[in-house]
């Protein structure tokens, strides 16, 4: 049981970080399907730069930098250039997945995966028995993730910036009418989301593991996205949903060890996707109800800004 708990924390941390990123984007009204791509560039850049400089901090810094640039480009394409948010987001994901795999070959001359010596610090040490082993393997990012979520909550729900962000996402006209430029606020939201994705990716490659593997995010960006919807766009809700998916993953890992003889591995791996479909369905039901309440407004909405 303790083992599942510890594994849950480890599986959930990257999900929660990326889900928090998704909350920022979603609240600003952006259906951000590029999370997966940003996550994997974060994972790769941390490993690549961390390995080159020998410093995990520099690696993470570089990952954040790369993601800020990519997010700004994404904003430029979907905002001023008017591209489709979903298609461009999927494109961003492909650029991330393809670009990192390509760079793996181009820079390290390898296919598949590379190992790295850099690793995030692990604050709890020295436990060698039982579930403590996994706890002592939790990286610093796992421990500060709750802090990040809490900060996100304060910023989104208890700050003027959060009000502006929500206004932009919900009702751009309201934002414009008080002199807020929705486009700029969206850029800010995307930049924050990009940085958080970088952290999520870093946790994946140098926190939970010590390597970078092609396509190592394996749909986590999309699952984080679902956590956002499941969590009703609320930072705490999304974090809880992320934890839940982490838990499902942990059970999956456990059952792989325990019952893989009887239940094929693939079916266990399907669980998160099936849950996700249910989650989107339920989340959609919930959202629709609240949307209906706003439809009276929607009719008055100005075409688009």
């Amino acid at each position, binding site marked *: 049981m303790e083992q599942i708990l510890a594994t849950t924390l480890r599986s959930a941390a990257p999900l929660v970080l990326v889900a928090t990123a998704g909350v920022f984007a979603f609240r600003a009204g952006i259906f951000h399907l590029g999370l997966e791509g940003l996550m994997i560039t974060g994972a790769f850049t941390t490993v690549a730069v961390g390995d080159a400089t020998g410093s995990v901090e520099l690696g993470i810094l570089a990952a954040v930098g790369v993601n800020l640039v990519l997010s700004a480009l994404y904003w430029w394409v979907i905002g001023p250039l008017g591209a489709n948010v979903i298609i461009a987001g999927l*494109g961003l994901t492909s650029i991330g997945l393809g670009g990192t795999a*390509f760079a793996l070959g*181009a820079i390290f001359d390898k296919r598949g995966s590379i190992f790295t010596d850099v690793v995030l610090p692990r604050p709890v040490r020295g436990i060698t028995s039982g579930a403590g082993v996994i706890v002592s393997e939790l990286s610093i990012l796992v421990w500060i993730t709750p802090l990040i979520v809490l900060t996100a909550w304060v910023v989104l729900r208890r700050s003027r910036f959060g009000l502006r962000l929500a206004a932009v996402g919900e009702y751009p006209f309201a934002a414009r009418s008080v002199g807020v430029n929705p486009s700029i606020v969206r850029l800010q939201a995307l930049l924050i989301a990009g940085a958080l994705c970088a952290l999520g990716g870093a946790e994946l490659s140098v926190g939970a593991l010590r390597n970078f593997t092609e396509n190592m995010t394996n749909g986590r960006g999309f699952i984080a996205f679902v956590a956002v919807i499941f969590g009703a766009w609320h930072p705490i809700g999304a974090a809880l949903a992320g934890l839940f998916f982490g838990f499902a993953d942990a059970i999956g890992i456990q059952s792989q060890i325990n019952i893989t003889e009887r239940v094929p591995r693939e079916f266990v791996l399907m669980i998160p996707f099936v849950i996700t479909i249910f989650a*989107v369905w339920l989340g959609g039901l919930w959202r629709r109800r609240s949307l209906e309440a706003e439809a009276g407004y929607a009719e008055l909405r100005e075409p688009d800004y």
Partner: protein
Amino acid sequence: MTGSLQRVASTVVLVVVSLLLTALILWASGYPVGDVFSGIIQGAVTATGASTSTIRWAIPLLLIGLGVVVGFRAGFFNIGGQGQFYIGACCALAVSLGWREGPAPLVILCGTLAAIGAGTAWSLLPGYLRVRFGTDEVLTTLMMSFIGALVLQYLTAGPMRNPSGTGQTAASERIPDSFRITDSSGVSATVLVLVGGVAVLVWLLLERTRFGLSMTLVGRNPTMARWQGIDVRRVGLAAFALSGALAGLAGAVELYGPGARLVTGFSPEVGFTAVVVALVGLLTVGGTVVAAILFGGLQSAILFLPIVTDLPPPALVLLHGMVAFLVTIKFKAVWRRTGPEAKAAAG
């Protein structure tokens, strides 16, 4: 008509820009861009068997891409073509392996129908959730796609695994040669006629039937369509079903054509590439045919490239991503710059 000409022109420009950007990245990574491009031309057109190979890769892209076009026409993003393709192939395989002794034409027919049915079912679930509950179809089709990939993985590694198979990735048993409609090149008159016929039928349905027109209206403005008495749900479900059926058919063609057996995670990018193909084809049937051949050529070239240079294959994924990232840019938005927005009506 200048409007559509403009759209074609802007799409061509954006695809070229994506190619140039990718070339820039290759160049910056130290690859000989000139060699790569001449390699692409060789691998797609001039080398022996290259044009056949281009067509071979264009066929699944075209079929799945047409499905995407149908979905988009009715206003839906079916981005789960990959899973529908896999599940279609799996069902065709199950029929063929389960009825090895059957008469070839009948088995192929049953297998193809099974594939179409499976693809339809795979997209009808998200479709039903969408039209009934308003559940966002982007995510559900994507999840169904992941599940489809796992089903394929399970079948090829488990019940249908070829026990004598070596190699790293699991593969299924081969279907009897008599069931195949092409040789290993994947192109034959039968397949060309079949795919061409499907394309024509889809075109007729979309452009020359009242159903196709209702689909267009539903896709553009479901509220208006509903006020006009069009059954928006029925039209939406039909669009989803047809979209999945086309992807399922692509799976059957893949199996009875070049594949003959299924390998875990085969053609992993074809679903997403088909979305790009449909977009580059401006969501029209004719455009999708052209775009499918273009991207089929790129796919064929990437397999040929190792002969000329050591470019890693993910470069192609990068290129596809680049095209998707840019292809929906509206040139009007670029040209309009500042100035009052025409949409904000004068008061």
